[in-house]
């Protein structure tokens, strides 16, 4: 906007939306922070005294805290790894002219439209179940012992399920990025003597860097708070093997009715998310600059 007056008018116009959004965000956050300093357990009636950092201390010293933190990071990194690499490969594949391209593309996008709870249940019961699941059946066909995914590799199984859900998103964004690559650049590289592999690493991959950054940033935001998939498959177990921070907060506050402790966990999760975000922006944020 050009002039002082139009700029001021512009600010005025967008202020209701901004204020609403700000309140929408700040009120729950403020309440969470406030609760996190209270002794507030629904099973212990009475007043809720301010107890300072007691809740945080409990949360940090909870034997489940560090495993949950590590599980969260492993989950995020694992899914990111699978979806970006798999997404690039799938995008390359879908970019090739082939028979039934339209249908194949729709099929690839499909998992994104399935609700997390549903897809996790489908995976749990129809694929990974050692008795009824497809993988178990395949194993017995080849004369192997069926593998009980969710019991023996719970975190890995959840990574697999979540990655399956997010792969279409990554593929779609990377595919559009790939299609926006100027074909003359590839032809120039071909004339310059670059084979398919060199063309991929020297021309395509740098071109995809920006889209991949967007994929990683957006996915990280959602992956830090994975919950439904864990709830319907492993319930965070066995033990705490598949408990992430979100799930830990849930089990603290809802299963144990301790609002104060759960709030403290929530605040810690927010701080962790911010640390991860800053870290990511430092690492790959420069890709977004023009």
């Amino acid at each position, binding site marked *: 906007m050009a002039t002082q007056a139009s700029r001021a008018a512009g600010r005025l116009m967008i202020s209701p939306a901004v204020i609403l959004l700000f309140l929408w965000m700040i009120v729950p956050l403020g309440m969470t922070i406030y609760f996190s300093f209270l002794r507030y357990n629904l099973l212990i009636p009475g007043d809720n005294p301010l107890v300072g950092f007691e809740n945080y201390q409990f949360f940090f010293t909870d034997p489940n805290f560090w495993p949950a933190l590590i599980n969260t990071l492993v989950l995020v990194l694992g899914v990111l790894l699978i979806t970006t690499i798999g997404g690039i490969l799938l995008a390359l594949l879908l970019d090739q002219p082939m028979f039934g391209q339209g249908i194949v593309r729709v099929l690839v996008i499909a998992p994104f439209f399935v609700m997390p709870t549903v897809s996790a249940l489908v995976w749990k019961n129809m694929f990974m179940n050692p008795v009824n699941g497809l993988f178990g059946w395949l194993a017995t066909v080849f004369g192997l012992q069926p593998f009980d995914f969710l019991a023996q590799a719970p975190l890995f199984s959840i990574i697999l399920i979540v990655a399956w859900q997010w792969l279409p998103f990554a593929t779609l964004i990377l595919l559009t990025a790939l299609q926006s690559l*100027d074909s*003359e650049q590839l032809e120039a590289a071909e004339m*310059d003597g670059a084979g398919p592999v*060199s063309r991929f690493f*020297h021309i395509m991959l*740098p071109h995809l860097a920006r889209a991949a950054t967007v994929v990683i940033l957006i996915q990280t935001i959602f992956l830090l708070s994975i919950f439904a998939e864990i709830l319907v498959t492993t319930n965070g177990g066995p033990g705490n093997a598949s408990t992430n921070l979100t799930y830990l907060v849930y089990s603290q506050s809802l299963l144990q009715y301790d609002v104060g402790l759960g709030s403290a966990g929530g605040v810690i999760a927010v701080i962790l998310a911010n640390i991860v975000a800053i870290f990511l922006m430092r690492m790959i944020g420069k890709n977004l600059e023009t």
Partner: protein
Amino acid sequence: MGQIELKGVTKRFGDAEVIPPLDLQINDGEFVVFVGPSGCGKSTLLRLIAGLEDVSGGEIQIDGRNATAERPAQRGLAMVFQSYALYPHMSVRKNIAFPLKMAKMSQREIDAKVDNAAKVLNLSSYLDRRPGQLSGGQRQRVAIGRAIVRSPKAFLFDEPLSNLDAALRVNMRLEISELHNTLKTTMIYVTHDQVEAMTMADKIVVLQAGRIEQVGSPLDLYRHPKNRFVAGFIGSPKMNFIGGAEAAKYDAHEIGIRPEHIDVGTTGAWQGRVTVSEHLGSDTYLHVQTDYGIINVRADGEVALHHGDTVWLTPNAACIHRFDQSGNTL
């Protein structure tokens, strides 16, 4: 060496035959320009030579060796694209070095060659910039630099100057001509631009609908066009065509006379009225309404004629081109 020969080369896209069987001989060191109306297959022909498109039939020979099945890189040709096709994420230095790196040359050799090319093309102070931080002319020079470091057998240019403004185009035109004089490498150049074709070419190839209408030196085409199409295509402003009784006087189906071969006076063969006069300073272009239609005349810059003036036109009889029924020159 950079001798290229096309023998019966054809190209089909699906059912559409874009290039019917075509023969063309390009000698070593020649500057060959492909011209023709839009969509006539100039780019396609260039891409066939480059190896970016497969031929549907026929044979492409480079230095006497059958190169039809060779990949683009193996043919030893370099191409400069209309959009420059620079690699946006690499510095100018890396862009120019890319073909050398792909050829697995040593870093010392690469540096020497890149510095040399940068000096030739006046790019030395931009080597560390990205293509996005360069002007159009500089980008064009980087694209040329990337082509010359490989010491190719021939350069292929596809309308390399069409994205530049008029002044820069003149400059780059001279630079490319100069480059050709120093390198003495075969160059094949596709353009829409009359002036580029006439000034740069050793040999012009006029194409229409994938067919070669005529091959020859610029002046040859200007003076002795083989047919009506070439006559109308080469030369600017375009040749005037007159049919009917006036043509019959010259024993032809149709006659053609270039605007610069018509004299304007107070008496003459054809009477007409000026509809538009364009004063360019050095020349005046007159559009004259006559009994035979609008005739364009290129007159002296001093001519002070305006809309509505009556003039008499006299064609220079020696410069009249005569065409038969099917458009061939008599």
